[in-house]
């Protein structure tokens, strides 16, 4: 380690402190807003720390009393889980066999680039025909319809991640099993897929978060509690007539909790993914 002067050490610590504040302040403020009483939030000068901690909004949002803010929020929470879950399972179902095929058969590799290229497409390029088709099929404002549309994002993405996952499993293991007389389905089931399980879990997690985050298609293709996802529900709250800022903040905290926890605990896997360029910006 290079030697630093005392001044340099102090400067580095000050800069680190500044970075810490920049990163943490907005997130912490979101949380403080969610537990502050409304008088504290609209006080001038603003109360940066609430006089009394008010957790009631969490109760309000997570209650399922008919026609309450909670009912709409809980419904959108379940819709998000359903849509993201279904889209993730479907994406893995189509991505895993193709990723393995591309990884083991370089001559069809070019098709992977075609698949990845679609990931760059702006969603607006597909939105109008998708809307018309969903309307025709009666799948507007429907969790299945939305999950199907999410495959446009998740399928290319998971194929890409799984392909690099299979690339890191030596094919010699598979050839050895072939020589011992194992059939392809046995090899995949007993050897390759178990070895690829960690990559598959990472891909599933990423895909789920990507769907959890999605807003554009959800805004277009859902209209009420039957299919509205969390992101749309929060945008409604933020843009609507709700004047309880704490309630908006609480909804934000609840929606952010799953990805934040995943982010903190999966740090290593996430960064490995980020640096291989395999993640949305």
């Amino acid at each position, binding site marked *: 380690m290079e030697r630093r002067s005392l001044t340099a050490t102090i400067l580095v610590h000050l800069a680190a402190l500044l970075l*810490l504040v920049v990163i943490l302040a*907005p997130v912490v403020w979101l949380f403080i807003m969610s537990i502050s009483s409304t008088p504290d939030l609209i006080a001038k000068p603003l109360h940066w720390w609430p006089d009394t901690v008010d957790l009631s909004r969490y109760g309000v949002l997570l209650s399922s009393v008919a026609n309450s803010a909670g009912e709409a929020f809980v419904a959108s929470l379940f819709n998000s889980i359903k849509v993201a879950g279904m889209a993730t399972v479907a994406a893995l179902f189509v991505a895993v066999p193709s990723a393995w*095929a*591309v990884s083991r058969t370089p001559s069809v590799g070019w098709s992977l680039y075609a698949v990845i290229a679609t990931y760059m497409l702006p969603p607006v390029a597909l939105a109008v025909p*998708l809307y018309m088709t969903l309307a025709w099929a009666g799948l507007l404002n429907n969790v299945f319809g939305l999950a199907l549309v999410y495959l446009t994002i998740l399928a290319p993405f998971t194929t890409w991640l799984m392909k690099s996952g299979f690339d890191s499993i030596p094919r010699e293991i598979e050839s050895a099993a072939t020589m011992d007389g194992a059939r392809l389905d046995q090899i995949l089931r007993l050897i390759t897929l178990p070895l690829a399980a960690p990559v598959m879990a990472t891909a599933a997690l990423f895909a789920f978060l990507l769907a959890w985050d999605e807003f554009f298609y959800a805004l277009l293709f859902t209209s009420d509690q039957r299919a509205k996802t969390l992101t749309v529900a929060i945008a409604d709250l*933020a843009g609507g007539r709700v004047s309880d800022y704490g309630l908006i903040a609480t909804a934000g905290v609840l929606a952010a909790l799953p990805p934040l926890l995943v982010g903190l605990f999966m740090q290593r896997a996430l960064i490995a993914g980020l640096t291989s360029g395999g993640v949305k*910006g």
Partner: protein
Amino acid sequence: MTSTWITTRAWLLMLPLLIVMVAIIGWPLVDTVRLSFTDAKLVGTEGSFVGIDNYVKILSGSNFQRTLITTFWFAVLSVSAEMVIGVLAALLLNQQFYGRSILRALMILPWALPTVVNATLWRLIYNPEYGALNAMLMQFGLIDAYRSWLGEPGTALASLIVADCWKNFPLVALIALAALQAVPRDITAASMVDGAGAWSRFRFVIMPYLAGPLMVALVLRTIEAFKVFDIIWVMTRGGPANSTRTLSILVYQEAFSFQRAGSGASLALIVTLLVTVLAVAYAALIRKSAGAS
């Protein structure tokens, strides 16, 4: 096993993916092209063939030109700020200090925060009556009256860029940090023995390691910024006075608010074309820089 069989087997395994991709990406894209030459409405009329009318109208209209410029500024300013701040943060995180591993771990927070939650959070921070930014600037004596950061055309775009930058610079920082950790210790040590100053060490010793990963980050971020919709929709819906209206917002308004599917489709294709040009140009750039280093 013959190689024909292996290739056939590969295609068979890829069949489910290919069917899905054709059905929900390929076909809609083709249909967007068809629609772009019609005056179809979103609901009801099929529309009739109008040739390149939609394109002519869009390209000669002031709405499109103004929106293109807004999108350009949003993309250029937010991405360059993210790159500069991201690299500076990475250089810092590569130094020794107390709590370094905690700070590195926390960098993931803004990235993990859902985009809509981020937009909502900053909308609250910028709130003209009760927002934290106004309160803080007032308490420090930097402003003498509360301002409507998102409500005035002069500050709305800049405020959006700050919010976007806060969410995305940590990603650049993490990518750059991973690249910095790959720089061999003895090379930096040797350059110090040779008397290289801090800047020339950065420029000639460290930068070559950073260039590749940063270029990839730049490409992905620029394309994302060009397609931006969520953060703007939630924070300003393109307002005030259309000062923050980007291309994706314009397509949304045309195709869905005004239900003009035909011209909405042409606009969407123009955006797609611009993104494709960006992606291809960047891909060439990356290949060139990869060949050079």
